[in-house]
Every structure is written in structure tokens, then in C-alpha cells.
């Protein structure tokens, strides 16, 4: 008997603090699997952001620092500049990255900072209990857009990959999803490529992962997955937006 699937080494034994059916757990596992496969656990530094994943330094078995809300890309820049041999990644939600940290993510990308950003987009503020996020869809009801997001009042959702794609800087931008096994495999490939680019010093890589938030969407885990497919993916198309230079070797 050969082990086909097991808990990656880059995850601690800590139980995830996420809600049932939340995709953070899947994404954490993919990042950890990639860290294992690239054999970089001793040099990896996780820069945690503020949101549901704020305590992910309890789950990733790597060095880690917890950055102020929105500032993870800046903190990661500091780590990478001071310790260039480290593999530095930030793990941020849409409130952290696309609201509080918009300047930080744009400038880190424009500098083509050699860090990897795992950006989880669930179109809502999870930790604080379901408020509207910059990625909340038009018409989507949240605790702070109770009548549904109205462009005239609350403006329009931000497509981060497309936004960053207008910059010369970034080396790699891809949007993926984890709503079924096929897409989980695709997402892992993207995360792996992002980390590989950093290992090769190619610069800024960001993988935007569409993610379900059953609790705050008030949907079951399964219904949330349908919502990802029907609604989220309609506004946030999956695909590779930027890919500077090929990554040699198996993807």
C-alpha cells in the first residue's frame, strides 16, 4: 500500500478554525503541499494578514509574522529585502488586499517584488461577520449592503488580477477556484508555479483563489459552491492574466 493522500508536512497538527465548508482549509492544504513538494519549508516565511486567516501561522509549520491589516505585502517586502534567500508569501483575503491594502498590493506588484501572494476572494468580510467587501458583487446582500450592493451607492466590485495586470511589474497573475476536484488540481498547479517563480527570482506572483463563505453567504457548503460557479466566476473569470518567462521543469 502506498500513501496517495495525507496531511502535508507544511501544515501543523492544529485543527483549522474555519467554518464547515470554508475553502480556506483547501487553499491552506494546497499551499502546504506545494511547500512540501518544492522542499522549501525551512526557508519559507508566511506573512499572515488580518481576516479569517489571521491565525494561519498556527496552521502553516513555517516561520511566520503577522502583519497589520492590509500591510502584508509591505511586511513581506521587508522580510524579502532583508532575507533574500527566504521564500516569502502573504496569505490575504479580499478585505485585507483589495480594501485596506490596495496601495500595498499595487506597489508590491509594480516593484515586481519577488514574493508570492495567495489572495482568497470570497466577496465578503468573513471574520467580522459578513460585511460588504470591495469584491462584493452587484446586488449581493451583506450586513453593510442589506439592500444588495448598488453601483450608484456602493460602487462596483474590483477585479484584482485585471487591475494588477495593467502594471508592467508583476511576473505571474492567475485566478483559480477550488469548487471541484478538477479546479483544485488546477489551483494547486497555479500556486506551485507562483512559488517556483519566486524560487527562480522571477518576481511578483499572485494567485487569486475564488472561495466559498457558507456562513456569511447564508448558504450550505454545497449551495455555496454553486454560487461560486454561477455568480463569482461570472464576474471574476478564471485564467492566467500574466506569465512572464517560462518555468522550466515540470509544472
Amino acid at each position: 500500500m502506498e500513501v496517495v493522500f495525507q496531511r502535508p508536512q507544511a501544515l501543523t497538527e492544529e485543527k483549522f478554525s474555519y467554518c464547515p465548508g470554508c475553502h480556506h482549509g483547501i487553499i491552506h492544504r494546497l499551499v502546504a503541499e506545494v511547500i512540501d513538494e518544492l522542499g522549501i519549508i525551512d526557508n519559507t516565511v508566511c506573512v499572515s494578514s488580518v481576516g479569517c486567516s489571521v491565525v494561519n501561522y498556527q496552521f502553516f509549520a513555517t516561520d511566520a509574522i503577522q502583519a497589520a491589516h492590509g500591510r502584508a505585502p509591505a511586511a513581506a517586502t521587508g522580510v524579502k529585502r532583508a532575507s533574500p534567500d527566504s521564500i516569502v508569501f502573504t496569505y490575504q483575503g479580499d478585505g485585507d488586499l483589495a480594501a485596506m491594502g490596495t496601495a500595498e498590493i499595487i506597489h508590491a506588484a509594480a516593484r515586481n517584488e519577488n514574493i508570492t501572494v495567495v489572495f482568497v476572494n470570497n466577496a465578503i468580510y468573513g471574520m467580522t461577520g459578513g460585511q460588504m467587501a470591495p469584491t462584493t458583487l452587484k446586488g449581493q446582500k451583506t450586513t453593510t449592503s442589506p439592500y444588495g450592493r448598488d453601483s450608484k451607492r456602493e460602487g462596483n466590485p474590483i477585479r484584482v488580477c485585471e487591475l494588477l495586470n495593467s502594471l508592467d511589474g508583476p511576473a505571474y497573475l492567475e485566478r483559480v477556484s477550488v469548487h471541484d476536484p478538477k479546479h483544485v488540481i488546477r489551483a494547486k498547479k497555479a500556486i506551485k508555479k507562483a512559488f517556483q517563480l519566486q524560487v527562480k527570482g522571477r518576481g511578483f506572483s499572485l494567485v487569486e483563489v475564488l472561495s466559498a463563505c457558507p456562513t456569511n453567504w447564508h448558504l450550505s457548503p454545497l449551495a455555496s459552491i454553486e454560487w461560486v460557479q454561477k455568480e463569482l466566476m461570472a464576474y471574476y473569470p478564471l485564467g492566467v492574466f500574466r506569465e512572464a518567462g517560462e518555468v522550466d521543469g515540470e509544472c
Partner: protein
Amino acid sequence: MKGNEAIGEAAIAAGCRYFFGYPITPQSELPEYLARRFPEVGGVYLQAESEVAAINMVYGAAATGARVLTSSSSPGISLKQEGISYAAGSELPCLIVNIMRGGPGLGGIQPAQSDYFQATKGGGHGDYKVIVLAPASVQELADMVGTGFDLADKYRNPAMILGDGFLGQMMEPVDFAGIKKSKIVEKTWAVGCKKGRERNVHTSLYLDPEELEKHNIKLAQKYELIAENETMAQEYLTEDAEIVVVAYGLVARICKAAVEKARSEGIRAGVFRPITLWPFPQKELRKAVAAARGVLAVEMSMGQMVEDVRLCLEGRLPVRFYGRAGGMAPTTQAVYEEIKKISLECKGVE
């Protein structure tokens, strides 16, 4: 050498190789200097998109154990307050330079000392302290960079140099030899490439209130230790002074001249100059005013340090205040007249 640039050279001498900053008058010469000099010594200079980003870059670099510097001026330091609170909460050493200018708001670009409260009472959230050093000359500015890094490393806490536009812009001879001796502490707590050590995590998040209280108590004990061991002050003619002028930074030099003028007219005055603004040199001040009958605090603000003087002396003797603000500096003559006024009051002649 110009004050701002002396800070850069002193940082290099102190083993600092990382600077994250943002342009703002009157300190921009420092980032400009390091942008030129750092590449020559293998340093990393990065201009961030904002002071908020800069202090968080400092936070990241500090976590790797590197000696890291940032500088700004008053409004920029306001933007850094959250990051400084995080650095204190995560116990990450770094050095922040504030070349103060007139405030509040956009204020002006002329020198001032109106950020005293922000620096010493904590401009950010939570129970934390920053070690605050106030040099009065370009040489002391350079020396304080070494001292600041040593204290920050020793106590794993942010340290701040509180200068002002004069100090930053003026030129005076400076010697960096003294700084080289400062020892660099080996940091086992650093993140980065680990060889066989346990993983390190730096966070200021303690969701469990009991844990957070324990953390606060631990920090408070650290601050008590600093207060007991690290206060610094300088005195001039205070041994027999009946009037002691308390002033820091460049203002203390103006007061020295005023005191000499008063002395020439038989008024026994002296100057007490706190060098550490936090921890405030309370023991030293109480000793200095033991024989005095009046105290005059002089600042380039509407009166901030004067409150700490009053707190320290606990009403034992009257504490007057004289200040100029908005970028105006007190003149020797004006300070002298304040001293004279107090002296007359003490004699009950008025």
C-alpha cells in the same frame, strides 16, 4: 556634515543595512543620502509608497533580525503609529527618526517639538512605550543612532530619535568612530532561513484575554527595566542653581546661552537637559532641582514636556512654561527674560 546625512552614516557605522522611507521635508536628505550610500555598503534602500507601507516594511525586515531604520517628519510619523504599535506588540527592534516640524495637520516645514506627547505617551493604540532619544547636536544625533539601535536590540522594542528641522538641516563636525563599538546582538528569534532551529513566529495577536494581559504585564516589566536603567540627562550649572531651566534638543542650547546671560547678572540659573524623553529622567531631575526655588520648561511647542516635569516634581516647586510654536524658535533674550521674571518672583520683589 548635515544632521540628516549624519544619521545615515551613523546607521551604516552601527551595522544597519536596511532603510524604508518616504520623502517629507525637513528629513528628505536622509533617504537621499542612503539611496546614494547604501549600495556602496551592500545596504538596501527602498522608498515605499507611503509611510504606512514603510513602517510595515521595517516590521518585516526587523523580524528577520536585521538592523533597520526609517525616518520621517511629524505627519509621516503619525501615519506610522499603527506600525510602531505592532512592532512594540511583537517585540521587534527598529529605529525610527522623527525630524519634527510644525503641526498640527499639514502644519509647516519649520522645526518644532510638538510631537513630544505622540512619541512619549504613545501615538498608537495599546499599552506600549517607545524608547525616545533627543539629541542636541549633530554629533549627538549620530551617537544616538548607535545608542538607539543598541537599546532597541537590547530590549527588543522600537526606539525613536526625536530631532527637529534645525538638527536635520544644520551642519556641524561629526565623528563616527564611537558608533563602531556598539555591539550587535545575535537574534535567535529571527525569521528567515532556519537551520535546524524551531520555527519562529512573530505576532501581536492574543485573542485569549488572559494571554494578552500576561503579554501586557511582560511588556510593562520591560518598560520598568528600561526606566530604571536607561535614563540619560545632561546638566549645566545646576549645582547651585536657584532657577533650573528644563529643555531638550536644540532648545537646550538656546537656554544655555540665556542662563549664561542671567548668571552674568548674578541670577544663579542652570539647564537640565533630558536626553531620554522616554524614559523621562525623573531621578536626575529631582536631584538637579533639590536646591532650586523655581523651574522653567522651554519648548518649541505649546507645552508638552512641561507636563512630565510637573508630574516628576509633584508640586514641590512652581514650574513655569515658555514656548514658541509653529516653527518659531525661542530667542536667548526671551528665555533670559523669563528666567529674570521667575527670579524676581522668588525674591518676592514683584
